[in-house]
């Protein structure tokens, strides 16, 4: 499985009228687990819809498991898709929904029912599978969506924001389940706009924004990117001016401003390319200067700022 080229995009562009979905993407992925990272509107769902054959590329060619996925039963038999939206029949119960989709996959009714029960149990829905979907919480719906995607044991699992809406325990359970899935040698592609959600599942990432694949690599390389492009970092400490002066004198930030947050806290806002060096220096400064650091965080949408920076690099503006 892993030797096979699982996904191949050749100069793929998708336009929705005048709106750009994905823009001239060329990539080749073998078997394994991949995280598709990008902010909202980056083109992730378009890319996944191209993979499942629901969309036709405006230009270029898409191959999944060596074939054109568009209306191709051979490919569709081997992929499992968990969309980012809900869309399940609200009036029927979870096990009936999964059974129905398994029957659509070609299973007999009894085999489908048996397998659906197993999968619902696997995703932690044993207790709720006989209840109508309309009564499910967001997390229960996510689990049911995952159950229908894995039930026919596909070779390639395509998941769009699979952990969204899950509570921490649910996330941990789903992560464990998906890890086991990957451990069985099956391929998986997971789209998310939250890095740490999929960091626990895979070490291979594709960063997509503005319809383009901006970067790809391992989790370490992504972190490197996160720390080496200009980022906004908020620091809350007991002596803001002193901390700002320390940073600027060490030439670790382009700028340092003291600002009041929405919560009413005063923070230092740093614009820096050296986040990793700053984090390494902080313990020393705390010891030498008696600084007390209460909080360090990147701006709320750190991934968005990373992508903005990558886009600027891509355009040659940085």
């Amino acid at each position: 499985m892993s030797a096979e080229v699982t996904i191949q995009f050749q100069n793929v562009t998708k336009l929705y009228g005048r709106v750009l979905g994905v823009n001239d993407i060329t990539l080749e992925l073998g078997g394994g687990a991949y995280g598709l990272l990008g902010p909202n509107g980056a083109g992730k769902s378009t890319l996944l819809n191209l993979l499942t054959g629901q969309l036709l590329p405006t230009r270029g060619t898409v191959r999944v498991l060596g074939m054109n996925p568009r209306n191709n039963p051979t490919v569709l038999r081997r992929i499992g898709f968990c969309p980012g939206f809900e869309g399940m029949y609200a009036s029927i119960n979870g096990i009936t929904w999964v059974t129905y989709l398994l029957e659509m996959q070609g299973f007999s009714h009894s085999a489908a029912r048996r397998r659906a029960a197993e999968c619902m149990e696997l995703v932690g829905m044993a207790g709720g599978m006989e209840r109508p979907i309309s009564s499910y919480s967001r997390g229960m719906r996510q689990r049911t969506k995952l159950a229908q995607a894995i039930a026919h044991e596909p070779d390639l699992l395509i998941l769009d924001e699979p952990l969204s809406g899950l509570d921490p325990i649910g996330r941990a359970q789903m992560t464990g389940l998906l890890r086991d899935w990957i451990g069985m040698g099956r391929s998986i592609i997971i789209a998310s706009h939250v890095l740490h959600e999929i960091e626990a599942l895979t070490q291979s990432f594709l960063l997509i924004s503005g319809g383009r694949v901006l970067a790809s690599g391992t989790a370490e390389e992504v972190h490197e990117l996160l720390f080496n492009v200009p980022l906004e970092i908020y620091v809350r400490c007991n002596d803001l001016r002193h901390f700002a002066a320390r940073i600027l004198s060490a030439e670790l930030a382009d700028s340092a401003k003291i600002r009041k947050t929405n919560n009413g806290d005063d923070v230092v806002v740093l614009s820096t390319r050296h986040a990793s060096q700053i984090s390494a220096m902080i313990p020393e400064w705390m010891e030498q200067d008696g600084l007390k650091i209460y909080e360090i965080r990147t701006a709320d949408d750190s991934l968005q700022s990373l992508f903005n920076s990558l886009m600027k690099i891509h355009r040659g503006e940085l």
Partner: protein
Amino acid sequence: MNSLRAVFVYEWKRSLTAGRIAWWFAMAAFPVLITILIRTLGDFESHNDIAAQKSVWSVIFYALIPGVCVALSVLLTAAPAVAAELEQRSWAYLATRPNGIFWLLLGKFLVSVTWAATAAWMGTILSVGACGMDEQVRMILSLSALSLLSATAYSAVYLLVGTIFPKRAMVFCMLYTVLVELVFGSIPAIINRITVQFRLRTLFVNWMPLDQRMKDEDVFQYVLAEGSSFMQCFWLIALSVLFLVAGIVVAHRKEFTSATEGDI
């Protein structure tokens, strides 16, 4: 075939809501009510001989049962076949199954045919029973066969129209019915030969107990097809298959993602 069975069973189960069942009974009861109203309020029975009365009842039943009752039933079931899945965003789950679109549309088509035909059959039995004419068995069998053919053909047509225009499926189906089936279907020219009404009307004249004087009227020469009833049935089935295949082909070629622009 597991897929087809699944779609058929689940679509039927989904049809068994209080609203849908009430609509089914309303469709079955509609011709019966009209029949009772005509018998109660109308006085044509006193002015016409038996043969003429039978012809008038036949025309009324033809208009009410394979016409209005079937068309309205199919409008509710076949026209929104694609739109319903797109609106509730379930299309992606079904379209990503092997031959999912094919089985989905075929299953919905069969549900539409059976849903409309059963309502029409119930309406036929009760209405013919209520009209008080003789030759009731002939009338029931003829109207039942006409209803089944009508349900098959209109399900295929509305499925195609609903696939081409999923956002306004019912409006376009109504427009199609009025413009093509009623207006073009009544024009004595080549164009009426491709309408469902042209073939159904010919079968109606061949099968129902119409007064010979009525059949001899000149107008029938222009709005009826030549050839045997078998040929008319063949044409209706051929048209149904053609429309159904066209609907499935259109659904395969169109890009029906459930994603919204925000999901890009």
